């Protein structure tokens, strides 16, 4: 009788304890769930916050200049007349020059690493190229200013100017004086910066081609080049374009590497050997000293413009790369 009483008491205690523990688990679970979900939503809010604050900061300038902000190349702090065209032009031209140089070389490196390189060297060289990606951009900037620009000014630019001097049309594109710094130099530095990005994404994409496809092509007698051009490239085309667009997005937004070598001239000139400016270089150089609400607001408007442009480019690249992942999963 006593035992039955004791055991029933113990059982209800155990039930109590068990219920308490289960409830604690439940509370802990839902708390953890809520915390993690709110952190995930915070990421979304972050993007929203960035866009909202940029729009808020830029609205005085946008209200003042309207759509003309995008088409005017004036940049006059005296009369408070600001226009983004020179900065947009510089941003686009330097990025295009960077792509023209980096895409062929990056693809070449990727082909080299996947097809031609001796197996033992593949990892070290791959790592070496990725080391280039790890170097912070300010180092590219000072390297460009102290080493590349004087070299270009002393040896390369005079030769280029002399070569194109008498050719109509191109003589405008390569006109002097040889500054050493300028749009072409900035484009070259950007090219070196986005090179590892293009080559590593291309290499990953090339590696995703099923070997059986390449072996079949080799089997019917295709040369290496034909395999790359006719089998690998079409199969990976979407991924390659995605990677290139990612590199473009990076080049458009790059600040420190460009600020040192762009020359800070708010001008649109036909010569790529001359100075120019990009959106990010303008903001970096002028923001801390901009006096006047309209000046500051115009710089923030430039930031908003840059964010919108890079957002679009990066979104397209993301969509293309997502398609490649789905393709690979199939």
């Amino acid at each position, binding site marked *: 009788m006593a035992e039955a009483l004791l055991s029933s008491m113990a059982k209800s205690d155990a039930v109590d304890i068990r219920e308490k523990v289960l409830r604690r688990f439940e509370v*802990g*679970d839902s708390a*953890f769930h809520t*915390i993690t*979900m709110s*952190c*995930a*939503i915070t*990421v*979304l809010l972050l*993007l929203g916050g*960035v866009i909202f*604050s*940029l729009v*808020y*900061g830029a609205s005085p300038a946008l209200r003042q200049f309207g759509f003309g902000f995008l088409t005017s190349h004036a940049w006059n702090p005296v009369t408070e007349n600001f226009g983004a065209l020179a900065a947009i032009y510089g941003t686009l031209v330097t990025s295009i020059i960077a792509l023209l140089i980096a895409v*062929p*070389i990056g693809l*070449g*490196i990727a082909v*080299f*690493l996947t097809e*031609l390189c001796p197996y033992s060297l593949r990892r070290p060289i791959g790592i*070496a*190229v990725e*080391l*280039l990606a790890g*170097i*912070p*951009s*300010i*180092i*590219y*900037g*000072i390297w460009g200013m*102290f*080493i590349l620009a004087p070299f270009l000014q002393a040896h390369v630019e005079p030769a280029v100017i002399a070569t194109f001097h008498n050719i109509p049309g191109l003589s405008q594109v390569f006109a002097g004086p040889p500054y050493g710094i300028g749009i072409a130099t900035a484009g070259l530095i950007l090219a070196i910066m986005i*090179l590892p990005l293009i*080559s590593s994404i291309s290499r990953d994409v090339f590696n995703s081609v099923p070997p059986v496809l390449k072996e079949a092509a080799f089997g019917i007698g295709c*040369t*290496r*080049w*034909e395999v*790359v*051009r006719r089998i690998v490239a079409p199969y990976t085309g979407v991924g390659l374009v995605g990677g290139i667009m990612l590199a473009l997005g990076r080049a458009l937004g790059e*600040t420190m590497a460009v600020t*040192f070598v762009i020359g800070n001239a708010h001008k649109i000139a036909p010569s790529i050997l001359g100075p120019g400016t990009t959106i*990010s270089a303008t*903001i*970096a150089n002028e*923001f*801390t000293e901009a006096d006047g609400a309209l000046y500051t607001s115009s710089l*923030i408007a430039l*930031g908003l413009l840059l*964010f919108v442009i*890079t*957002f679009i480019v*990066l*979104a397209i690249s*993301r969509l293309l790369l997502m398609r490649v992942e789905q393709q690979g999963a199939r």
Partner: protein
Amino acid sequence: MASLQASRQLRSVIAMALCWVSAGLGLTALALILGALLWNGFTSLAPAVFTQMTPPPGAAGGLLNAIFGSLVMTFFGVLIGAPLGMLAGTYMAEYGRGSKLTMVVRFINDILLSAPSIVIGLFVYEIAVVPMGHFSAFAGSIALALLVVPVVVRTTEDMLNLVPSTLREAASALGLPRSLVIRHVAYKAARAGLITGLLLAVARVSGETAPLLFTALNNQFWSSNFNAPMASLPVVIFQFALSPYKEWQQLAWVGALIITMAVLALSITARIIGAQRTTK
């Protein structure tokens, strides 16, 4: 027939030769940059760099306050950003796998990952510097935290997705509630990958200059005051490199060397830890 074969072979040889040249160009660029950095940095490296403050123009000095500032702001940036990123990544991998919210967050996160850091600097200027009325190391830490978050979210989600579900199911079968399954099983299994992600995030923000330009500004003296401008290596390099003073330019190279060595050390450590994981 033979001539067609020959021309095809020739084209292939030329194309492959160009690929060799590309690889050579890439490696040459790396050698030139690292070489200049090592040469200019090491020739000016001295113990004074780590013991003295940044000097006025024309005098000798060191980088102590800048190194301290970088370390402190990076530390707090990671302290704020890493938990946020890790929890968000946890949600995406554990609770929301395959859900619409996860897809959207992943998409947005990848865009934030590659967005220009100067825009983040402008954002933090608007939300931290303007309301406070002055530049501060606090604002600088916030800017770095915002750069850490996307990296950590991405790596956390990827690493947690790699943990086999059988581990989780076994733990659940033993009676562990969901949150403890995540914390005691999934995190432990993905620990190496998570640490790798953290190291990569630190490596990324170590070299960032633009977001610090209008948040923490700069300070030529020692400052441990979070409510005041604080020096940092990248901003000091920016100022010193653009000046005509030889001592300042030399210090800029030394600072660049320090940053690059730190970033490379972090990346290599991350790689080693990641490799250990796969061999286990």
